[in-house]
Every structure is written in structure tokens, then in C-alpha cells.
């Protein structure tokens, strides 16, 4: 692995992991909001 390839790989990892985490947070947030609406409707 050359230095430049390693740099690109590290840079990609540094951005992909937070972006995946952000997507996970948004998905979870939508699910909880939906659940909250359902609960309010049923009560």
C-alpha cells in the first residue's frame, strides 16, 4: 500500500463512518417520532 493510497483510504474511512452514524441517527429519530405519534393517537 503506497502512502497516497493509505491517505485516501484513511480519509474515506474518516468520512464514511460519521456519515453512516448520521444516517443511523436519522433513521432512529424518524422511527421514534413515528412511534410517539402512534402512541398519542392511541391514547
Amino acid at each position: 500500500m503506497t502512502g497516497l493510497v493509505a491517505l485516501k483510504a484513511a480519509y474515506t474511512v474518516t468520512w464514511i463512518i460519521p456519515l453512516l452514524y448520521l444516517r443511523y441517527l436519522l433513521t432512529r429519530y424518524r422511527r421514534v417520532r413515528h412511534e410517539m405519534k402512534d402512541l398519542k393517537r392511541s391514547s
Partner: protein
Amino acid sequence: MKPVSVLFIVFTLALLGFSTYQALVVAPTEQTMGEVQRIFYYHAPTAWVAGLCFFANFLASVAYLLRRNSNADALAAASAEVGVVFCTIVLITGPIWARPVWGIWWTWDARLTTTLVLWLIYVGYLILRRFATGSQTQTLAAVVAIFGFVDVPIVYMSIRWFRTQHPSPVIGGGENSGLDPAMWHAFLWNLLAFTCVGIIFVTARYRLQKLEDQVEAEHARLALERSMR
């Protein structure tokens, strides 16, 4: 979302663009390692954010044990999760740097091993929070967090206490340590940018935790109502 939050996110995005430019273009190429040294501008700031998150988790856990405050518990959960995310980046970017420089992906030296142990401790903490049931879960999690935090100063000091393959500290490492001023600027900009990203993530995760707590409380209230009918 509040206007101040939107402003902070826009500021952070602009800062990230600028700090990336500083790291990849402005900072001079290191003479011995070459381009691969630029990984340092991501690796060290993400390690810093992970450490900050675990420190926040420690403080929140102490606050929870003292006051049984649900906000403190939510902050502990949020900061531990974000800390694990950043610690994962550290554990992946480190070996990517090591391969061309050392010729190996991994070695069981003090810094690397203690960092892996740190990651495992907080993954264990998150698993405990996720799967343990009963009223004592939050208390148990807080105790685990306080004991787990002991590893953070050990990780920090490991390259000072032991002879390791990991590079010696460039910040606060003694007389012969330090960075070129241009490298310092790039490093500090990235440190600031990643700290802002960490703050955004912890805030978002904290709000999510509070929402989840509300849903859980609502479920409990409905269940109680049904059982009383």
C-alpha cells in the same frame, strides 16, 4: 431545529471544508513519511474527540449516581456512543497509516492495545445499556462507565510510560517534540472542526435519547391505564 443549531451546523461544515484544505493542501509534506503523514490530521483529532466524549460520559455518570438525574443519564448514553464512533475511526486510520510506515497493520504495543481495550470497554457499556433490563440498568451503566474511564489516562500516558512502536508524543512530549508551524495550523483547524462535529453528534444523540425516554414513559403510562380498567 433552532436557528442557532442550524447556524452551528453550517459553521461546522464550512470549518470542515477549510480544515480539510489545510490538511491536504496547505500543510507541508513530511520529509520521512511523505503524504501518508497527513493521516495525522484526522487520526489525532478523532482520538481527541473520542477522549472528550468518554470524559463527558464519566462526568455524566458521576452526576447520575449523585443526583439520579435522567438528563445526566441521557448525556452519558449519548457521549459513550459518539465516543465509540470516533474511537472506531482511530482504530481504523491508525493501522492504515501503520501499513506503509511500519510495514505491518497492527502490533500489540501499549498505545494500540490500550486503545483497543478502551473501545471494547465502551462497546461493552453500550451493550449493557441496550440489553440489560430492570430498574438498576442506569446505575450499573454509570458504575461501569466510571471504572471504564480509568483506561483513558492510561491510553494517553502509554506512549510516555512505555517504550512503544507508536510515535512519541508531538504535543507536550518534551524538548525534541513539536510540529512545524504550518503543520500546527492544519492540526488545530482539524481539532476544532472535529470537536464541533463531536458536539453536533452528542447533542443530536442526546435529543434522541430524551425522545426515546419519553416514548418509554408513554408506553408505561398506557400500560398502567389499561391494567386499571
